[in-house]
C-alpha cells in the first residue's frame, strides 16, 4: 500500500459529504428552537453566555420561590405543635388526683409550671382504636398511663432537685416509692434519692443507699454520678 493509494481513498472520503435533507434540517431547527428559543436570524441569535448574571439570577429565583413554596406547604401540612407542661404538686395532691381519676398532666390546674418540654403532636388515633376497646388494648393503655405517671412524678422530683429543693425532691421520691414500689424507673428513683440525701448533708444515709444500689445495679450507668455525689461507696 503506497501513499498514492491512500490519497485516492482519502479523496473519496473527502468527497463523501452528506447533507441532511430539508425535512431533517427543519426538524433539527425546530427541536433546537424548543430547547434554546427561536434563532431565525442574526438579530434573533441568542447570547447564551453573554449574560453572566442570568444563570445565577435564575438559580436564586428558583431557590427563593422553592423556599417560599416549601415553607407554605410545610405550614399547611404539619401537625400542630403542642407543649407538654409538667407541674409540681404535693404528694397529697397527687394522691387525690389519682384517686379521682384525673389525669396527672393537667396544665390548666397546675399551680406552677416547672418543666416545659416542647413535643411534636402525636398523630390522631385511628377510628377503630377509638371505637373498639379490647381487654389487651385496655391493659396496655393502663400500663402506658401508669408509666407516664411514674415518669412525670420522677420529673417533678428532678425539677425540685435542680432548684436545690432537696427536701421536696425526697418527699416526691418517697411518694413515688410508695405508689410504685416495683417501678421500672426504680433505678433512676433510687439514684436521685441518693443524690438528694448527699446534697442535704445526709451522707451516711446516702452512702448506705449507695451501697445497696451498687449491689442491686452493679452495671448501672448511674453509678459514676452516685459516686461523685457520695465520694466513696463503702
Amino acid at each position, binding site marked *: 500500500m503506497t501513499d498514492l493509494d491512500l490519497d485516492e481513498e482519502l479523496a473519496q472520503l473527502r468527497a463523501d*459529504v452528506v447533507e441532511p435533507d430539508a425535512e431533517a434540517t427543519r426538524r433539527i431547527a425546530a427541536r433546537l428552537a424548543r430547547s434554546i428559543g427561536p434563532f431565525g436570524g442574526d438579530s434573533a441569535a441568542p*447570547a447564551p453566555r453573554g449574560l453572566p448574571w442570568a444563570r445565577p439570577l435564575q438559580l436564586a429565583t428558583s431557590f427563593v420561590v422553592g423556599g417560599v413554596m416549601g415553607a407554605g406547604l410545610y405550614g399547611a401540612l404539619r401537625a400542630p405543635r403542642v407543649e407538654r407542661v409538667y407541674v409540681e404538686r404535693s404528694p397529697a395532691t397527687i394522691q387525690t388526683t389519682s384517686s379521682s381519676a384525673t389525669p396527672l398532666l393537667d396544665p390548666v390546674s397546675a399551680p406552677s409550671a416547672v418543666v416545659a418540654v416542647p413535643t411534636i403532636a402525636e398523630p390522631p388515633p385511628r377510628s377503630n382504636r377509638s371505637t373498639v376497646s379490647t381487654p389487651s388494648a385496655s391493659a396496655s393503655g393502663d400500663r402506658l398511663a401508669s408509666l407516664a405517671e411514674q415518669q412525670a412524678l420522677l420529673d417533678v422530683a428532678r425539677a425540685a432537685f435542680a432548684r436545690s429543693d432537696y427536701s421536696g425532691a425526697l418527699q416526691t421520691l418517697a411518694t413515688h416509692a410508695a405508689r410504685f414500689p416495683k417501678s421500672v424507673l426504680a433505678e433512676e428513683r433510687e439514684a436521685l434519692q441518693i443524690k438528694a440525701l448527699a446534697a442535704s448533708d445526709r451522707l451516711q444515709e446516702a452512702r448506705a443507699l449507695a451501697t445497696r444500689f451498687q449491689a442491686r445495679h452493679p452495671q448501672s450507668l448511674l453509678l459514676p454520678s452516685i459516686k461523685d455525689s457520695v465520694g466513696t461507696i463503702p
Partner: protein
Amino acid sequence: MSVPAVHAEGGERPSFSAIFARDLGYVWTSLRRLGVPSRDLEDLSHDVFFRVYQRLSDYDAERPFRPWLFGFCFRVASDCRRRFSNQREVLGAELEPIDPLPDALDRLVQAEATSLAQLVLQSLELERRAVFVMHEIDGCPIPEVASTLGIPLNTAYSRLRLAREQFAEGLRRERARRGER
C-alpha cells in the same frame, strides 16, 4: 491536506444561526464519519448544536472554527457509543450471547457504508478515527487536533500513525477479499 479549515469571518464570533446554517452539513457528515448510524444523525446533530449554543462564548475567534466544532461532534459520538455499548450489555445478558467481533454498532454502520474507503474508516477505533478524520480529511494540523481532542501532541501523532496503518491494512484486506488488485 488540501481542505482548508474554516475560520470565523473577520475574526469575530459567528452568530449561532449563521453557524447552524453554514455547518449543519459539516456536523452531519462528521458524525457519520465518526460512526454514528443514520438513524441517530438527526438526534445527535441536535445535541451537537445544543452544546455549541451553550459554549459559544468559549470559542476563541482567532482560531479555526471547524476543529472546535469537530470537538463537539467527537464528544457527542463518543457518548453515543458509550450509551449504545451499555444498552447492548444489558440486553445481551438477558437474551443471547453477544457476537464479540465486530461490534454490533460497527456492523450497522458498515452496512451503510457507500464506499470501500468509508467501510474501512468505520473499522478504526473511535479515538484513532477522530484524529484521522480531522487531519487526513478535514486538513487540520496535528497540534490543532491534539488541542481540540484534549490529548498530548505525541498521542495525537501516535494515533494518526496507527490509524494510517490500520486504514491501509484494512483497504488491502478488503480489496483482497473482493478479488481486486
